[in-house]
């Protein structure tokens, strides 16, 4: 095989610091077909990080190198770390074949033992955290076996069709997350003297030390230790730790992907992420041309005019991150409101229909969304296989008269100031909770809606809350009247359809039902029959492998949801735009935008390259 490598690595090989390329990538590297053409080596890719809780941004660029991944179109699950996989017909047994000669970033071979270590000693042992439900089915943990040095088998007690999608999601990387030879030293099972290490590192306990050194999927310390061996295209040089001002990652000499010409990926030498605390300074960095690729943090519509104006100065173009479906803002009335009177009202379908008809969606879109958008309720777009017309488009017209008729029909008389009165005589006035810092346009939209609802005699107050308060109040406390949240959804495997079935803490229309579902009926409140039915169908869908069967089940869930019309919203979720430097090649014009995908990792940044060498110093 005539493989090629980056000049810097070639030098190191020449100096004898590294084994030759063939030994590093083994015999079965993944061959990537570049999007546009075979690239050239060099340069660095700059993207902006924020100082806190932005570790997933690194993940999105580096990619969650799990056993499998989504393809670029977000339609198919393809092998990744695994060379190939097989799924049994009953969707209970999953066999993964690993790559021969593949190595961790420090040169140690990667084998089935690593998978076993990850699963048995860490995940299933619950050593650090309880086993995620993702690795359970039918109330039992998955069984993991090593068939040979390069083959592992996962066996579930029950059918579990969504398992591959779960593995492809950024949360499903556990089976190949930790290098056994390195991380096992922090487990008492492997290292009886772990206490010494703990003391030397000034850590609280071995768990803490393990987390600090080896990280975990969703915590920043995953990027905090340059020593930790990984399977990623770039490895940490300057870590993401508290107070860091930048993160630098350099190419992994053992990375296991090559292009069609046999060049080892990644093309780009270095990831360089300056840390800005404030979004506005990120905008400035972009304008100044100090950022080569960025979607996250910059994608608010309000930034777009400035970014557009400065495209030449910053030397970037826009890249579209198209939404998978759904909407940017779902209004969730709290159907499980603590006050029975409100609960009764919110649970009245006609009331919700009236509110939906009472919104002048066109005006809101025109004003708050800069004219971009289309009236929409919920669910995937027209071109998506899961598209559900009724759910998406019912009650979209602006029809004050009908809304008033419905409300009058519910016996809600208007009081002296034009606000309707509840049966108890209280004015019909409720609050909608929103996080103002998150998507600022939500507040604007709500303000406009509030003015529109006033005309049908409904008083709504916008209640902006800091995000922790919001979360506490709406997702944990169930203390809200109503709340808004984003609702991008296409109901594909791995993604939670929280707006049509209340199974997640973002289903703010029925939090006690979520608790009931998650606790298996032990906590929360038993939901009504229609919700229970949807929960059942959803569980069934998750167990199903066959895409068509699964889709049919999800459509049934959507049918019920459309009938119930529990949540409603304003406009289609619009594509957001990121910026990408004009000199960067192999970057698609558009990419799906989703956490489960997660943007842009499946577009393979490791195959991006600098077409114009002067950029990306």
């Amino acid at each position: 095989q005539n493989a090629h490598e980056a000049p810097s690595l070639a030098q190191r090989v020449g100096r004898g610091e590294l084994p030759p390329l063939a030994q590093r990538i083994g015999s079965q590297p993944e061959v990537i077909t570049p999007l546009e053409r075979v690239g050239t080596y060099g340069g660095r890719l700059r993207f902006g990080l924020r100082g806190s809780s932005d570790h997933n941004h690194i993940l999105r660029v580096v990619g969650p190198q799990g056993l499998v991944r989504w393809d670029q179109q977000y339609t198919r699950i393809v092998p990744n770390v695994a060379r190939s996989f097989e799924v049994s017909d009953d969707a209970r047994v999953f066999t993964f074949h690993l790559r021969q000669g593949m190595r961790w970033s420090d040169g140690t071979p990667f084998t089935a033992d690593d998978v076993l270590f990850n699963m048995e000693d860490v995940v299933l042992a619950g050593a650090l955290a309880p086993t995620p439900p993702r690795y359970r089915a039918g109330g039992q943990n998955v069984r993991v076996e090593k068939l040979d040095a390069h083959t592992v088998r996962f066996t579930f007690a029950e059918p579990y069709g969504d398992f591959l999608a779960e593995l492809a999601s950024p949360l499903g990387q556990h089976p190949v997350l930790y290098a056994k030879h390195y991380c096992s030293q922090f487990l008492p099972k492997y290292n009886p003297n772990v206490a010494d290490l703990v003391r030397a590192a000034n850590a609280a306990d071995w768990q803490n030390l393990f987390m600090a050194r080896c990280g975990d999927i969703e915590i920043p310390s995953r990027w905090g230790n340059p020593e930790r061996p990984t399977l990623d295209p770039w490895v940490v040089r300057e870590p993401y730790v508290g107070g860091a001002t930048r993160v630098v990652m350099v190419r992994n000499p053992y990375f296991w992907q090559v292009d069609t010409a046999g060049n080892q990926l990644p093309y780009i030498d270095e990831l360089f992420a300056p840390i800005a605390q404030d979004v506005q300074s990120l905008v400035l960095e972009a304008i100044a041309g100090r950022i080569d690729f960025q979607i996250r943090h910059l994608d608010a519509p309000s930034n777009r005019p400035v970014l557009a104006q400065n495209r030449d100065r910053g030397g970037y173009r826009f890249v579209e991150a198209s939404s998978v479906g759904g909407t940017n803002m779902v209004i969730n009335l709290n159907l499980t409101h603590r006050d029975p009177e409100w609960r009764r009202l919110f649970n009245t379908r006609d009331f919700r229909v009236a509110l939906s008809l009472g919104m002048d969606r066109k005006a809101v879109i025109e004003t708050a969304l800069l004219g971009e958008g289309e009236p929409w309720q919920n669910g995937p777009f027209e071109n998506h296989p899961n598209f559900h017309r009724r759910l998406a488009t019912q009650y979209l017209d602006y029809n004050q008269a009908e809304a008033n008729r419905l409300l009058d029909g519910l016996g809600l008389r208007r009081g002296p100031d034009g606000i309707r009165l509840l049966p108890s005589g209280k004015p019909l006035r409720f609050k909608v909770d929103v996080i103002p810092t998150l998507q600022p346009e939500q507040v604007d939209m709500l303000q406009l809606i509030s003015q529109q609802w006033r005309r049908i005699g409904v008083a709504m107050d916008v209640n902006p809350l800091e995000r922790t308060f919001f979360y506490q109040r709406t997702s944990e406390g169930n203390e809200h009247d109503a709340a808004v949240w984003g609702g991008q959804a296409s109901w594909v495997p791995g993604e939670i359809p929280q707006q049509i079935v209340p199974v997640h803490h973002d289903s703010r229309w029925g939090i006690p039902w979520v608790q009931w579902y998650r606790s298996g009926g032990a906590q929360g409140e038993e939901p009504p029959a229609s919700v229970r039915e949807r929960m059942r169908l959803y569980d069934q869908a998750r167990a199903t492998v066959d895409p068509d069967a699964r889709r049919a089940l999800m459509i049934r869930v959507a049918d019920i949801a459309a009938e119930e019309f529990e949540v409603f919203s304003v406009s289609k979720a619009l594509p957001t735009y990121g910026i990408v430097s004009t000199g960067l090649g192999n970057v698609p014009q558009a990419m799906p935008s989703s956490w489960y995908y997660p943007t842009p990792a499946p577009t393979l940044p490791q195959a991006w390259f600098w077409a114009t060498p002067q950029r990306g110093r």
Partner: protein
Amino acid sequence: MLLAFIVRRILWTVPFLIAVSLVSFALIQAPPGDYLTSFAATLAASGDEVDQGRLEALRERYGLDQPFLVQYWRWISGVLQGDFGISFEWQQPVANLIWERMGLSVCLALGTLLFTWAVAFPVGIYSAVRKYSIGDYVATTFGFIGLATPNFLIALVLMYIGVIYFGSDVSGLFSEEYQNAPWSWGKVLDLLAHLWIPVIILGTSSSASLIRIMRANLLDELHKPYVVTARAKGLSEFTLLMRYPVRLALNPFVSTIGWAFPQLISGAVITAFVLSLPTSGPLLLQALLAQDMYLAGAFILLLCSLTVVGMLVSDILLALIDPRVRYQ
């Protein structure tokens, strides 16, 4: 005796700091939820989803499900042994995170303090002595414009101007090559070259207020009979001013020293945030917002200690410059 006084004050700081730590711990915990709630909220806000089961497990591991006093005790007993605990967010010992940042913060605060005094003193004296002169009006107007503009807005505008018109970056405290370099002369010079921008941003409003305070207090002293006496001795107006009325007008200045420092540090938080300064401000803010309580607690405790020292210095100086107050 001064020594006894200082010793008494220092002894007093111990229970004081304990009380402060208790209250600040309570304040950190006052917002609803805990680190994990905010962790989940933040991730959810970025479009990332978080695993609920993990949260529960972590909550237990961090002891966040324990009663307040138990948690406090866990923390403070560690602190007393020099162990500030672990930052939840970064999984690192807090002590590793704070020192360098705190050092830079102190640098910045010191710079700002010097700048403020260097500006406020002469200008304040000038505007008192030449009351209602053009210079006085100019100083007043500019001062108030500075005061009426949020610091971070100035920062933002400066950054914008820097980028658009000069193509240069005004944020941060170090050039790229020095960011993670070990300390050296070059790095110090680099720091100084970057420090002046935040110093000016932070210093404008505080110098504006000091100017006004100086002016007000000086105006009160300028006509006192003892000033005339001094004038009759043949002192030059300048020496006269400095030695007599200014010295008395210093009283409020000195009273402020006590908290100028910690306040500069905590007041700079948002500016530092906008300018992405590697000072303690942004980290403190994150820690607070994220309810990363040991980290936040350590910062607060440090700031409190600074205040206590500042107060001590301020009290001693107060006694030095005004014998009427001496140990009353």
